[in-house]
């Protein structure tokens, strides 16, 4: 259980960093409407990361319900 939670936390933080990387990469590499689409995609990835981190911090048992 402990390892599972740790992996969830790590995965969540990796998703947060990945989302931000997508946003920065979109700014650096793309032009026009594509920038907005990729920025929003990056934010969506960050939200997934936040959800994962939040679930990993629920008291043991709560996340299983």
């Amino acid at each position, binding site marked *: 259980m402990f390892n599972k939670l740790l992996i969830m936390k790590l995965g969540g*933080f990796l998703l*947060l*960093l*990945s*989302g*931000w*990387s997508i*946003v*920065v990469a979109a*700014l650096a590499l793309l032009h026009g409407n594509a*920038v*907005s689409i990729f*920025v*929003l995609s*990056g*934010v969506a990835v*960050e939200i997934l*990361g*936040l959800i994962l981190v*939040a679930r990993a*911090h*629920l*008291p043991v*048992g*709560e996340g299983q319900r």
Partner: protein
Amino acid sequence: MTSAGINSLLSFAICGCCLFVIPLAISGVTLVNTGLGRSRSAAHAMTCSLCVLGVAALAYFVCGLAVQGYPSHLDFLGGLDRGMLGRPHIFFLGVNESLQLLAAAFATLSVALASVIVLGAAADRWRIIAACASTAAFAGWAYPSFARLAQSWFLAQLGTRFGMGSGFLDAGGSGFINVTGGLTALAIAWLLGPRRGKYSSNGMPAAIPAHNAVFVLFGCMLAWVGWLGLNSAGAILYAGSPPERSVLVVINTTFCAAAAGLTAAAVTRIRFRRPDASLIANGWMAGLVASSAGCATLKPATAILTGLVGGGLVVFSVEFFEFSLKVDDPCGSISVHAVCGIWGLLAVGIFSGIPGQLMAQIVGIATLLGFIFPMTYGLNWLLNHIIPYRVSADGERQGLDLHELGADAYPEFVVHADEFMQR
């Protein structure tokens, strides 16, 4: 003297005067944090705030300014240009000109305010020494990193280089003060875990009441005065606003806080049949926080709209963190400063009417969530392994006043049992 010269001098004078009222914002937040905590940890909360203020100021002096640099708008004083501002070094070396000192003083007070915000989520269970260590990392590295990105690096250039409105707008610090502080508060609340007895075995939270509602509400009034100074100086220093716009800043800040406080009162009246003092205070603070980003950009009507949403949002956010996420945040710091700070940043994009501004604000929020939050969580996770953050179970039962300071805040009061705790 030319009109540009008069404007520059006026800007400098307004910023200088504002510096003297910004400490009231820090005092206000400290009083709110102390009042919402428990009576057996009241002296600890105030002492911890003073220690944290000291550490934040010194850490910023040692390396914070060197990391942050000067904002790109800092060229309003006629005789000075960007070249003369120069590059700041550690220990404030090379900070000699009056304009450099003004920027450094404002940033020092801002980082002190952001550091005090964090204490609210960790009340009644965070050791002073751990709070000081965490603050050193926050004030010396995490806060200045985002401030640099927002004020002079790529977020500030989103408008000129990427065609996103006027770039990331955050005049009074909804993002670089409140969201950085609020996200750090979330990281620490997660690392510390809830207070003893907060959640029963089936996960239901107990309502641990605030020990002094008068502290809390007086803190809100002090914070209002401080925020007027914070937003006025921030608008000139970080948004390049002309001095005459300070009146608009004062109006927007007051209207936003008023609307948010009243909305929180109405929402709690409808939901709980009585207005809730602590949530109204949180609503008022949420309005101040949400007003900061757009204080110089929004119109009074949109500032009121921002406050209306912020005041409602904070009530639901406090419940969401407490009931759904099981985060024990005694002072609502995460909801007030992180959630409503993010709302304030979004509101600028939605209501400013500048094409592309919303996207610039979203990029700024993405940076806060995707870069600053993992960094601040990682730093605190590491520090927690070196200096354990949480007091012992005995210390928590005894109260942090006696455990850490050896004396109670109210020695003549009878300490009653924890009858509100679920066993």
